[in-house]
């Protein structure tokens, strides 16, 4: 809501109040503003009178004007096509500063001297959206008979200041100058005065000429008056400049007056051509599929949720949103049928969402004061009489089902202080209610407050408490520490788990990222091992953010590509976030731990020491994490159900207690030419596992014995198979197995490989002898050779 100082001053005397100060005080009572500025920042612009105007002999465009600017007559060259003798115009004198910091200087144009500039409105800083076609192409001849040499900005009403407020959704009352005046009045303790509405009416009676029937409950008030013999012309300067200040384009006196009154009272009005609307006016719900051509020339198909104004032939207006073309005010209009009505906010909201959000619909959605409708319609008649020479027809058509009584709310001083945590006294509270214009009677520390209908936002005690708080000033509120019982705050088990995993993955050189939950259809289908039913947004903003993701990996791949394109060479990422899907008609959010690793894991280039991420580094990271979570010996890596986006030869599933919890591996070369490794584990599944507490186990005091053995074996035999056989054969004494060499190539037949193991034997109760180890070792060799068709490799 743009608030003009001059406009506001009509309702409350603020002439001598600094407008910036007023704006800042409004902020402190809860009304923020975006900007504060003058309509025109131009200086040194005066009213000039063109005494003489002739064409420049050497230019087709320029005119040479002799302009009386009060203290002297100057020669000004003007390029506007509409400049004429005997016009009053706005002249920027030499030395004037126009918006955009344009300084007017003495100039030579086509060999002639020019002492100033005759201004078009856009040169004075008026946005072209407010200008008529004529004003856009030429200068603006001033209306009326101004005094030559006086300040033209003032004459035009452009010396006004405007605060652009950003109002909260509950304060529909502030979408009017009247409401703003009450708010300012509450701050400054000043009275609000309402403008004139008294007008002499002619003998004709509206009831003889029209009938009104309201057939819907969605219209609580419908008032209609009629004004005859109106004359359509340009509005006076003060109306035009105030409309512009309020963000509305002036059109003609009649249209402008309907907007002007809406701004004054917050009550939208609609003017119909009385001759076109016909005798019988009906307010009803639209018939499903009924059509209406609205003022913008578009044919609208209506539903039974839209409210219409109609005559027996059909709809003539879409209530609260837009009038119909068939009853439009045109230059031939003679009589006006004025509507001042209140429609149901939710219906207007629905209709306007489909058709058009307008100044009127915005006000209807937020609620209209039922006591303002009559004031507004009378004010419109007054202005039409005064500025459109209209004759106001007597009497009024009335449909009124609204409750127009003040709301009575009783509240105790104690409750006010309890909620605010303040220590206010009765008198202080009474003053606030008085400043707000609320009548209140105090009895036994209880205030019985009458809230005027204009304050639709105040309905319960807490609403009144807010009024007291904001006007008393929250800056006066002293903070204190709540007195509450002692209680330990806690993180949920999941929180703790996420934090532990995060810390570990970071220690393992992975960077945490946060990416978007919404992905494209294509991304949503990738890495989806469970083939989940997707959650789809019904009103997406774009195709690439349409589906709730089931895997985080497509997002990590996007981050990878972004960084790679910026020449970042080593990329290690992880994210812990939800995946979303539907299962048995329920919406499920399952937390995933996902990561991406690419290129170097550890480097020292000048020493040529480099560890590049490969499958085994990835596997090491995952094992490290799982071991950290206390899951040693409970997980296995095997192929169970791999996403097709993974390299089938370099990827495995992660099984925990034989349950599938995720996958690790290289991204399929078809999806990424780079050797990128990814993992994804279900945190929710991990969390179902119970983990044993740490328990100390006595360390062996006796020395370990190390033995190395190598086998020649079919190259397809997985290492894990050999390890399992060794483990079983090694028994209790075998403490550890490591693979220290895998070799294929020279000296070994094509379908074989050599694989070497370092075995550690130990016993916590005694020193092992070489003989007994050799017995076990021979057993191991024997088992591996027979069970796996391997052969011991001798040096």
């Amino acid at each position: 809501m743009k608030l003009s100082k001059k406009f506001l001053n009509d309702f409350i005397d603020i002439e001598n109040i600094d407008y910036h100060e007023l704006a800042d005080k409004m902020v402190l009572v809860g009304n923020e503003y975006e900007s504060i500025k003058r309509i025109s920042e131009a200086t040194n612009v005066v009213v000039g009178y063109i005494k003489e105007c002739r064409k420049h002999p050497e230019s087709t465009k320029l005119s040479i004007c002799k302009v009386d600017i009060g203290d002297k007559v100057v020669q000004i060259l003007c390029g506007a096509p509409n400049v004429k003798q005997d016009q009053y115009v706005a002249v920027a004198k030499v030395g004037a500063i126009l918006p955009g910091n344009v300084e007017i200087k003495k100039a030579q144009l086509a060999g002639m001297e020019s002492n100033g500039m005759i201004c078009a409105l856009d040169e004075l800083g008026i946005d072209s959206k407010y200008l008529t076609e004529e004003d856009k192409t030429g200068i603006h001849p001033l209306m009326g008979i101004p005094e030559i040499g006086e300040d033209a900005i003032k004459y035009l009403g452009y010396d006004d200041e405007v605060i652009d407020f950003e109002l909260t959704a509950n304060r529909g009352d502030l979408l009017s100058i009247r409401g703003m005046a009450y708010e300012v009045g509450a701050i400054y303790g000043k009275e609000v005065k309402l403008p004139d509405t008294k007008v002499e009416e002619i003998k004709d009676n509206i009831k003889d000429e029209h009938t009104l029937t309201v057939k819907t409950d969605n219209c609580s008030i419908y008032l209609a008056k009629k004004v005859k013999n109106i004359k359509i012309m340009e509005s006076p300067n003060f109306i035009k400049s105030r409309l512009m200040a309020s963000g509305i384009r002036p059109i003609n006196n009649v249209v402008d007056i309907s907007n002007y009154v809406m701004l004054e009272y917050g009550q939208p009005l609609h003017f119909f051509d009385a001759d076109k609307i016909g005798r019988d006016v009906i307010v009803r719900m639209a018939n499903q599929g009924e059509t209406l051509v609205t003022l913008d020339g578009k044919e609208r198909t209506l539903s039974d949720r839209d409210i219409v104004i109609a005559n027996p032939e059909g709809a003539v207006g879409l209530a609260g949103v837009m009038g119909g073309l068939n009853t439009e005010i045109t230059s031939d209009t003679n009589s006006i049928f004025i509507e001042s009505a209140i429609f149901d906010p939710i219906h207007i909201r629905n209709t306007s969402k489909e058709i058009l959000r307008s100044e009127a619909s915005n006000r209807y959605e937020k609620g209209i004061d039922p006591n303002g409708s009559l004031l507004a319609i009378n004010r419109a008649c007054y202005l039409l009489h005064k500025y459109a020479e209209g004759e106001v027809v007597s009497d009024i058509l009335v449909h009124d089902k609204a409750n127009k009584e003040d709301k009575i709310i009783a509240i105790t001083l104690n409750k006010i202080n309890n909620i605010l945590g303040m220590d206010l006294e009765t008198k202080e509270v009474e003053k606030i209610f008085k400043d707000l214009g609320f009548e209140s009677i105090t009895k036994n520390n209880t205030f019985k407050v009458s809230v005027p209908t204009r304050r639709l936002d105040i309905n319960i005690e807490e609403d009144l408490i807010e009024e007291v708080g904001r006007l008393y000033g929250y800056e006066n509120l002293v903070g204190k520490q709540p007195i509450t019982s002692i209680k330990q705050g806690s993180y949920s088990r999941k929180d703790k788990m996420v934090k532990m995993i995060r810390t570990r993955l970071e220690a393992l050189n992975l960077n945490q990222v946060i990416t978007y939950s919404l992905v494209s259809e294509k991304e949503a289908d990738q890495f989806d091992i469970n083939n989940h039913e997707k959650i789809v947004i019904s009103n997406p903003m774009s195709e690439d953010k349409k589906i709730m993701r089931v895997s985080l990996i497509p997002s990590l791949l996007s981050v990878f590509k972004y960084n790679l394109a910026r020449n970042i060479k080593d990329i290690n990422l992880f994210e812990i976030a939800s995946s979303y899907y539907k299962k048995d008609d329920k919406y499920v959010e399952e937390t995933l731990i996902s990561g991406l690793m690419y290129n170097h894991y550890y480097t020292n280039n000048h020493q040529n020491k480099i560890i590049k991420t490969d499958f085994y580094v990835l596997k090491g990271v995952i094992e490290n994490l799982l071991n950290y979570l206390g899951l040693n010996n409970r997980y296995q890596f095997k192929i169970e159900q791999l996403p097709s986006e993974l390299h089938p030869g370099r990827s495995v599933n992660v099984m925990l207690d034989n349950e599938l919890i995720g996958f690790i591996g290289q991204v399929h070369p078809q999806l990424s030419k780079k050797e990128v490794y990814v993992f994804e584990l279900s945190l929710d599944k991990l969390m179902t596992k119970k983990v044993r507490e740490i328990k100390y186990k006595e360390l062996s005091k006796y020395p370990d014995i190390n033995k190395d053995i190598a086998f020649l074996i079919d190259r397809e035999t997985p290492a894990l198979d050999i390890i399992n056989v060794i483990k079983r054969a090694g028994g209790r004494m075998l403490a550890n197995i490591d693979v220290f060499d895998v070799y294929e190539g020279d000296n070994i037949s094509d379908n074989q490989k050599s694989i070497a193991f370092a075995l550690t034997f130990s016993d916590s109760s005694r020193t092992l002898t070489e003989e007994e180890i050799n017995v076990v070792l021979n057993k191991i060799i024997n088992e591996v050779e027979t069970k796996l068709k391997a052969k011991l490799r001798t040096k």
Partner: protein
Amino acid sequence: MKYKIIKIQEEIDGKLSEVTNTKEVLDLKVAYLGKKGSVSELTNMLSKLDIEEKKEYGALINNLKQDINQKIEVTIEKLAESEINKKIEKETIDTTLPASNIGVGGTHPITKTIDEVEELFVSMGYDVVEGPEVELDLYNFEKLNLPKGHPARDAQDSFYITDEVLLRTQTSPVQARTMEANLEKGPIRMICPGKTYRRDDDDATHSHQFHQIEGLVIDKDISLADLKGTLEVFAKKVFGEGRKIRFRPGFFPFTEPSIEVDVSCFKCGGEGCSLCKNIGWIEILGAGMVHPNVLINCGYDPDKYQGFAFGMGPERIAMLKYGINDIRNFYINDLRFLNMFNRINGGDDNETK
């Protein structure tokens, strides 16, 4: 005899000055002090002398022994030292060459911010709770005093899945869920961080996905002054000691009174600067007293209980705190950006309070 002693003395000095390693020194020790060494020979000769001479030469020979022993020890030490020195010289590297890259990942700045806020509130007895992101209209709006058709819904254009299911536009539905889940209908102190979504075009200050941290306190005697006191603690912790809080009236359908909370500008201290647009204050969160309708909707009796709620945006806090000017940075995840946050914070965070 005397001559022999002096000669040995001279001889050993000469030989010790020529040795190059410890073994040669030890050989010399054997050659002179060993059983068959030249000093031992002299000692053997003593028996042939008379008592006076025995006394005199005995003392001299003893001195000689001690002298040789000491010299040998010194020489060994010197040799050891020079061997170490040689080793050191050989092993000396160019320490100005670049370090090995020992990588450790970092925490995302939003998570860092959430962690900091969580930690503070947990220390004040709040529980960290969570709620679904795919939420019912019922919890996201209706229970929070935002019935269908309420104009305040415009400010939160939502991603809908069905007419009744949407992506939560705020973490506030967790307020309703927490109150409902509290079967005893007793006091609550909770904080809820999480992802939220609105149909905003992504630009420097808007993101269709962002985070919020919701706080809720329900008790019998909780006022706006308690809210202010609590947020003062918060502002000092997050934005530094000496920060002040300013309340301005605001509007949220689920609180009454509603408050916009400003913190005194931590760049200029309230004098006015470009960060605070010369106002001296920076808006950081929204708050208020829980609306009685919300209490009723969630099974609490507003005549017995009241409380406050607040909601803040970790993105905004991180942007202000670190001077980040484009919210999209958080979701692009440029590693160069993320790496800037891979360390402890200095400044006020680190000062002893």
